[in-house]
């Protein structure tokens, strides 16, 4: 009983871990370059949850000083994750741009097809 309660109480972490592992799995298992980027994006997104969910304090208000409120949520994780989101956008768009260029040069975005063409030509 105690154990299952602990699992349910930490459900945010389970969601985070599930997203993290599935993202990483997609990156490793898929040969399609766009799918790999989708997996990478999922992997990076799971980190936002890792930071944001402990930042929320139950019953806390937005961190703006006001009469009668003493419990505030932690704003710092949100600021950090805003930066991480920007980094994620940049990584994804650069990755997609590279994929477009690879498609123009090699005519495919399947990794095994590219390697089958022999990368020693």
């Amino acid at each position: 009983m105690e154990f299952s309660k602990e699992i349910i109480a930490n459900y945010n972490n389970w969601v985070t871990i599930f997203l993290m592992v599935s993202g990483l799995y997609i990156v490793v298992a898929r040969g399609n370059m766009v799918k790999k980027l989708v997996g990478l994006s999922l992997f990076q997104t799971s980190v936002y949850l890792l930071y944001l969910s402990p930042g929320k304090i139950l019953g806390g208000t937005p961190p703006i000083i006001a009469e009668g409120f003493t419990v505030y949520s932690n704003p710092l994780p949100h600021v950090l994750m805003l930066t991480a989101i920007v980094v994620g956008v940049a990584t994804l768009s650069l990755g997609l741009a590279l994929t477009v260029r690879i498609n123009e040069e090699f005519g495919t975005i399947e990794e095994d097809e590219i390697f089958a063409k022999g990368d020693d030509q």
Partner: protein
Amino acid sequence: MKLDLILRVTTKLLLPFILMFALYVQFHGDFGPGGGFQAGAMAAAMVFLYSITYGLPSAQKAVPPAIAQAMIPIGVLIFAGVGVYAMFNGGQFLNYSVIAEDAPHAQALGILLVESGVLITVAGTFVSIFYAFAGRGR
């Protein structure tokens, strides 16, 4: 391409409101949720919508790619410029407190300038990314 009348008119109607809302989010960022990043994304969305209904060439006539590309460094230059200006006024880099007479006023001014830099950069970046991908033939 023949354009649908309803689409065309609705788009034209929506555009000023999108920009208005973007600016609202930008300036309201001082008091509530919002800020340059969100506002920049919305301003870029305006260009996307225009481009989807009227086609890429007319969007690129309205917002030339060269300008969108130039916006990226210009926005960051505003951001960094505020920081360097603070440095010349005897504070640390990005210490807004020293850029105007009294500290609270200076903080408000600093954040406004920095956020406007963010707006310009984010809008420019998103529009450039959109152009780069949309402009490629299959």
